[in-house]
């Protein structure tokens, strides 16, 4: 009897082990891919950021912090960091302001309206960033034949063409366009989880439409807002196509600076250091955003 029971227990344990082993086997090839083509090169890049440039396109020991001090102590480079943070912040804020009414329309609108809006918002995500940015290049062109200038000149709103291209504003406009869907989706998700009875109760108690929005809807949508803000901020901060095509020299950002350091200056250690600064900045801001996502309003809404 006892031996049979032992066998049975042994079998369950060994079958659980074999099930786990099957899990490892199935996941192993993917882990090798991520390990070899992601962790290894990224860690290599971090190591490279502490290397000394040898002047012949190569780099090696001794380990140094010179690449980092060069970045933070040269006004030209630290101003690129400031531009990156400024453009990303404006893009995130503008996206949030634009996204709120749209997210409300998606959540509160009728079935057909909500579906149409969602498709119109998401569909551009499947069109190349290069194409969409090219579209903005045509629209924002500084000549009188730019779409915006042409419209404003013909409507008599302005008498000489505006200069928007090759400024930070152009990069913000292009970035808002590219990343807006990623603000609308989490926001709509958050708004959709707020029971309509909350707003109804506030309205019944005499709150105006604005008061309902500011004191009920807005605070309860905080998790979605925080998720959207950190997503849009970090994607803008690490973008390349927008600043490269629309930014010119005024709108240079960390992404374009990295490319320039590798392609023109061949300074790999310095480019690696900028990459580490960029990724660290984005990660710190994301973890702050993450803290808000898990903050109180979510529990109340859920």
């Amino acid at each position, binding site marked *: 009897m006892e031996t049979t029971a032992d066998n049975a227990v042994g079998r369950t344990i060994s079958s659980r082990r074999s099930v786990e082993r099957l899990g490892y086997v*199935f996941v192993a090839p993917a882990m090798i891919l991520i390990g070899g083509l992601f962790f290894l090169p990224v860690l290599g890049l971090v190591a490279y950021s502490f290397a000394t440039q040898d002047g012949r396109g190569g780099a090696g020991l001794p380990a140094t912090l010179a690449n980092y001090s060069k970045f933070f102590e040269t006004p030209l480079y630290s101003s690129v960091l400031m531009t990156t943070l400024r453009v990303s912040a404006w893009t995130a804020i503008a996206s949030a302001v634009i996204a709120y009414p749209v997210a409300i329309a998606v959540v509160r609108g009728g079935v057909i309206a909500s579906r149409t809006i969602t*498709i119109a918002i998401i569909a551009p995500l499947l069109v*190349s960033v290069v*194409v969409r940015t*090219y*579209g903005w290049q*045509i629209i924002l062109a500084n000549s009188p034949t730019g779409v915006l200038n042409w419209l404003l000149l013909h409507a008599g709103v302005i008498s000489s063409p505006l200069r928007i291209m090759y400024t930070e504003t152009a990069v913000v406009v292009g970035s808002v366009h590219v990343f*807006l869907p990623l603000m609308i989706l989490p926001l709509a998700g958050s708004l959709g989880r707020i029971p309509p009875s909350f707003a109804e109760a506030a309205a019944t108690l005499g709150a105006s439409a604005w008061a309902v929005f500011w004191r009920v809807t807005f605070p309860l949508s905080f998790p979605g807002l925080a998720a959207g803000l950190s997503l849009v901020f970090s994607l803008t901060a*690490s973008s390349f196509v927008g600043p490269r095509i629309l930014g010119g020299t005024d709108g240079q950002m960390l992404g374009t600076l990295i*490319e320039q350091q590798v392609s023109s200056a061949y300074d790999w250690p310095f480019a690696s250091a900028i990459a580490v600064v960029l990724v660290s900045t984005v990660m710190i801001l994301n973890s702050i955003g993450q803290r808000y996502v898990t903050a109180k309003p979510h529990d109340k809404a859920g």
Partner: protein
Amino acid sequence: MKAVSSDTGWFVTAFTACVVVFVLAPIVIVLAMSVSDSELAIFPPSGFSLRWYDAVLSEPDFIKALGLSASIAALATSASLVLGIPASIGLVRYPFPGSRVVQNVLLLPLVFPGLITGLALLKLFALAGSYDAFLNLLLAHVLVTFPYVLRTVTASLVLVDTSLEEAARTLGASQFGVFRHVTLPQIMPGIFAGVIFAFITSFDNFVVSLWLSGAGTVPLPILVFQHLATAFDPSVAAEASVMVAIGALAVVLLEWSVGLRRTAAH
């Protein structure tokens, strides 16, 4: 409540309409430019002509780039399926200690800046002496597309009714038979969505390809980007419009198969 909702309703509707115009404007402008009869890509486009498409489609560089991007996308997607479907099954059906962490680790390339991934890979390939641009691009694109497949397939595996699998097993179906005839049909929409996402992600990828393209190995987005700086006639708009058409096809396929809204929710 009625009064409140119609009050905000007017503003919300008008504003949303403006946002939809804003979102579609640059794409519509590119399409309009591509059929302009003018020699310059300036506004307003004049006349109607398909000659830029004629010119673009008979340009060897463009056809080569289109073919390269399509084949890399197809191969990278296939490789992502071969890696991603077993990995999803391992994570969802045979969880092991730490499998949740592993899942997040496998999805990491999705949230990591592609520009930096590409830069790191360029250095790795250079150190490893791998100078075959096609192979380098393909490996990089597998890395970029794999997380999309993993995400959609794990999401649909979680929704599979395991009692059906147990029933099939009780009735004597083999392990593989259960997967082939019970599980696979149920996760098919997830796999399909993963395929479309992976393909279009690879096809449109710019930031990783930027580093890895070679002299004769130029993916389509890189080629269009290069032409932006050198060509001022509507031929660039025609090239861009071909990319829009492929994106539109992906939208239609996703909407038709699983619904764009559901895939976006993942």
